[in-house]
């Protein structure tokens, strides 16, 4: 469980989200929606322990986030970054195997898990290829595979559907949905239809310190979506 109590999220010194109270539980598939620059990715960065620009209380499985060491945190949380960084030419299976870093499992276990994940992500045919020679979509699949291989209790996804074709989008959303049966999955996504279809819960960030959270049915109403997308309306 990831819980935020009166949490404020900063970027540099500006506050993006103020007094956020929300709990992400195993079995829930959360969609985070909101306009550009409202703090969606920054929130995921904070939850993944990549940024400590926050105030208030954030706990992962009952432990304060800032007291968890790096390896243990990665056992609890895996994070799909929005964009890949430039890097060296690792092979696809080496790249996915890197997801096993936080766990002190044996090499053969790691190989088994890597194989399973490659099946699950339908990227068996990419085995032996350098990740630098993949297309944008293929590379995205490898990144997703790396996160799944991490087998963490919580999965944070920053715009996972980027670069993916429509058929694969459907497939991978099913994979995430399945993952969320035993874990918490939190996804930042601009595709409202996908959020409607797959997410059980929604956190809608409206800017100006306003947010709405709850089950998809209660949040994704026409009125709320109008609030989100109407430039002129502002909530107090």
């Amino acid at each position, binding site marked *: 469980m990831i819980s935020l109590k009166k949490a404020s999220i900063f970027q540099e010194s500006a506050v993006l989200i103020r007094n956020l109270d929300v709990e992400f539980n195993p079995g829930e598939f959360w969609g985070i929606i909101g306009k550009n620059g409202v703090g969606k990715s920054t929130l995921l960065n904070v939850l993944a322990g990549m940024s400590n620009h926050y105030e208030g209380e954030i706990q992962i499985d009952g432990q304060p986030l800032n007291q968890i060491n*790096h390896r243990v945190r990665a*056992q609890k949380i895996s994070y799909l970054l929005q964009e*890949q*960084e430039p*890097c060296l030419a690792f*092979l696809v299976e*080496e790249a996915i195997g*890197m997801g096993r*870093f936080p766990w002190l499992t044996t090499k053969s276990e790691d190989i088994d898990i890597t194989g399973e994940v490659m099946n699950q992500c339908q990227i068996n045919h990419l085995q032996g290829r350098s990740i630098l020679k993949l297309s944008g979509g293929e590379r995205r699949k490898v990144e997703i595979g790396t996160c799944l291989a*991490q087998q963490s209790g919580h999965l944070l996804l920053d715009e996972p559907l980027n670069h993916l074709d429509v058929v694969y989008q459907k497939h991978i959303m099913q994979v995430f949905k399945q993952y969320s049966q035993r874990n918490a999955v939190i996804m930042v996504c601009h595709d409202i239809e996908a959020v409607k279809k797959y997410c059980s819960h929604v956190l809608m960030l409206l800017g100006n310190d306003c947010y709405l959270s709850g089950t998809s049915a209660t949040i994704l109403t026409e009125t709320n979506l109008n609030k989100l997308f109407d430039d002129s309306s502002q909530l107090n």
Partner: protein
Amino acid sequence: MGVFHNASKLWLVSVLLMLGLIITALLVGSVTTPINALWDANSPYYEVIWQLRFPRIINALMVGACLSLAGLLIQNLVKNPLADPYLLGVSGGAAAVQLLVIVTGLSLAPLMLFLFGFVGSLLAALLLLKLSYHGELRPNKITLNGVVLAFGFAAFISFVLATASGQQVKSMMFWLMGDLSFAQFNWLMPILLLIMMLLLMKKARALDLLARGDLFAQKSGVNTKQLNLQSFVMTALLTSMAVAQAGTIGFVGLIIPHMVRLLVGYQHKHLIPMSMVVGAGFLLLADTLARTVMNPIQLPVGIFTAMIGVPVFLWLNRKL
């Protein structure tokens, strides 16, 4: 894995090449000695081989291993393929201190000169660290500050050279282009090198993740702040040892890590030991050429690291 899919085969080839190289290096020089001089204590060349050539060969191997390992680390740290160990300004620091020693005419024991250079280069690295560290080490800060600092040191060195006497200039030039002929064997270097290799092998997996980017490593559970700092310190130590021992030898730290990546792929568990072996062998080859090609004149080894390294690297890079 890169070109070689079989690690043990690659190791076998490397060890055989290395042995051949060492034996050749023992036998050639200002005089070419017969092979039985290696074990025949009565041979007039026995002493030449074991008192003069052998320590120099060991030094060449160690300096080569230090430089290529340092290059591997710094390229991974700053994520820049053009980075070489001298980016940390350590060569400038060592040069400044050792040149001052030469100019003032202080005659020091070789170990003292080594220690002076070592301290000078560490001070330069500390200065760079101080300038680039803001709560954490930022790769692009290191790169920029390092390049700018190197210009500063270069200006200082030019100043010293411009005002020094002719004889002094010659010995300094040798030093600035890298030269193993003054190097004296000391135990500090192999011991430190071995310790650092073992420490790095323990970090091999974390270093792989760091090669995928700082954010990637961090989100995957690597303490990147700590690992970046450790990489910096180790690079500084390794380069300082090499510079103090043999001056500024170019190309080894820049080219060998790339060559080894092409050979064994990108995993540090292979890269670390193989860089050390290839770097060591490469510098020994260059040094052996430096002391034999224009016999009896000895040339700076830096000429040969470039003359061999550049074409070999360009060829490898074209092929893959």
